[in-house]
């Protein structure tokens, strides 16, 4: 290749090319040079890359033990025809974000099944994990390995069974997490706890829940690879925004939130 005659491609052309690459290639190409590293790590680049959606790739995430989750390309065949092996052997092992240490240390800590996270959902490349032991809710982007633990919310009546939802509000670029713990005995009206990532606060609102069974929590989910980092937290939002959020939740039909 004769590279002597051609001047270096300007950064905006490089950006156009990189925007059209899948996440896996981009993570590898962070090593090309310092300018490529900063270009690919830029949060705005992550958003443009997600919005352009030139090469969306989906992966299946499975919890394997306390420390790792397995991730496989959703488009790859499950059985390798030539080798006759299960593609699970080619799964990528990703280190799970750690839970907070147990509040009451106990002897059987490492054997405790509750130390394994439940996968509550996925949205825009983020996985919502729940560690039962410490009531830890953790938002995690397995593609780029960033995570954030959400602040604990205060229950009135402690219950391990809850309905949950996890979604993105494009009008505010905010991620919302809804948890509705089931009261015992069953009542139609329950308190919904809604967490807004942007304001980093929990809000509560009474909602009618037309279900008596929260269903099963998952140990497996699909997610779309993304470079998205967590949006900046704006802590001092006005009371107005909280009220707006609560109105929105009241107005939304639960069947839509949890479908």
């Amino acid at each position, binding site marked *: *290749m*004769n*590279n002597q*005659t*051609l001047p*270096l*491609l*300007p950064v*905006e*052309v*490089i950006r*156009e*090319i*990189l*925007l*059209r*690459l*899948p996440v*896996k*290639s981009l*993570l*590898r*190409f*962070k*090593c*090309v*040079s*310092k300018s*490529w*590293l900063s270009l690919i790590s830029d949060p705005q680049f992550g958003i443009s890359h997600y919005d352009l959606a*030139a*090469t969306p790739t989906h992966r299946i995430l499975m919890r394997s033990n306390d420390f790792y989750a397995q*991730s496989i390309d959703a488009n790859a065949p499950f059985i390798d025809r030539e080798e006759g092996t299960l593609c699970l052997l080619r799964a*990528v*092992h*990703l280190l799970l974000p750690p839970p907070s240490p147990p509040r009451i240390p106990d002897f059987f800590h490492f054997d405790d099944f509750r130390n394994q996270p439940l996968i509550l959902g996925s949205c825009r490349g983020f996985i919502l994990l729940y560690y039962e032991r410490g009531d830890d809710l953790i938002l995690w982007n397995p593609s*780029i*390995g960033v995570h954030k633990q959400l602040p604990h919310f205060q229950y009135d009546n402690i219950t391990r069974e809850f309905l949950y939802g996890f979604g993105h509000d494009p009008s505010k670029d905010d991620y919302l997490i809804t948890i509705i713990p089931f009261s015992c005995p069953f009542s139609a009206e329950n308190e919904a706890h809604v967490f807004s990532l942007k304001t980093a606060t929990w809000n509560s609102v009474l909602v009618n829940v037309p279900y008596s069974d929260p269903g099963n929590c998952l140990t497996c989910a699909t997610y779309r690879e993304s470079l998205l980092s967590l949006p900046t937290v704006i802590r001092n939002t006005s009371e107005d925004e909280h009220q707006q959020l609560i109105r929105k939740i009241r107005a939304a039909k639960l069947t839509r939130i949890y479908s």
Partner: protein
Amino acid sequence: MGERGEEWEAVMLRKAEEEESKAVKKVKLVTSDGVTMEVEISTVKEMETIQAFMNATDTDNSIIFPLPKVSSHILSRIMELMSGEYDQELVKRLSHEELKEICMVANYLNMKTLLHLTASAIANLIQNKSVEFVRHFFNIINDFTPEEEVQLRKTHEWAFEGVDED
């Protein structure tokens, strides 16, 4: 006289405009190697950088637009792609150097379709390639220390699996 005269004037004006637009159907592009290429005005419409210049200046019969960053070889390749309606097969026949240069010119002349097409073709080409291949392809000098690079590779180890041979 009054009304009829105005009507007459309007007809003449329209005629003059039509003739002018007929006359300016070609634009002369002067490439970096001094070649003048005459192109249709419709071709220039896609070159938004030139189009913006033409909109800003009064069009007359002799529009000459210098392209000091574009060689005649690359410009004729671009014309081929445009007349072939951006056929993928034509793109596949381009050399790596041509592809990079056309992508750069597409960005410089703000040709959206051509930029998308060539940027996608390059992305496709490097997608499964190694870091070393990409550095060579874009003529990029590695400015990481060996320690920094090892550390970066460790962060996303899985991204280095299943890469094509260079």
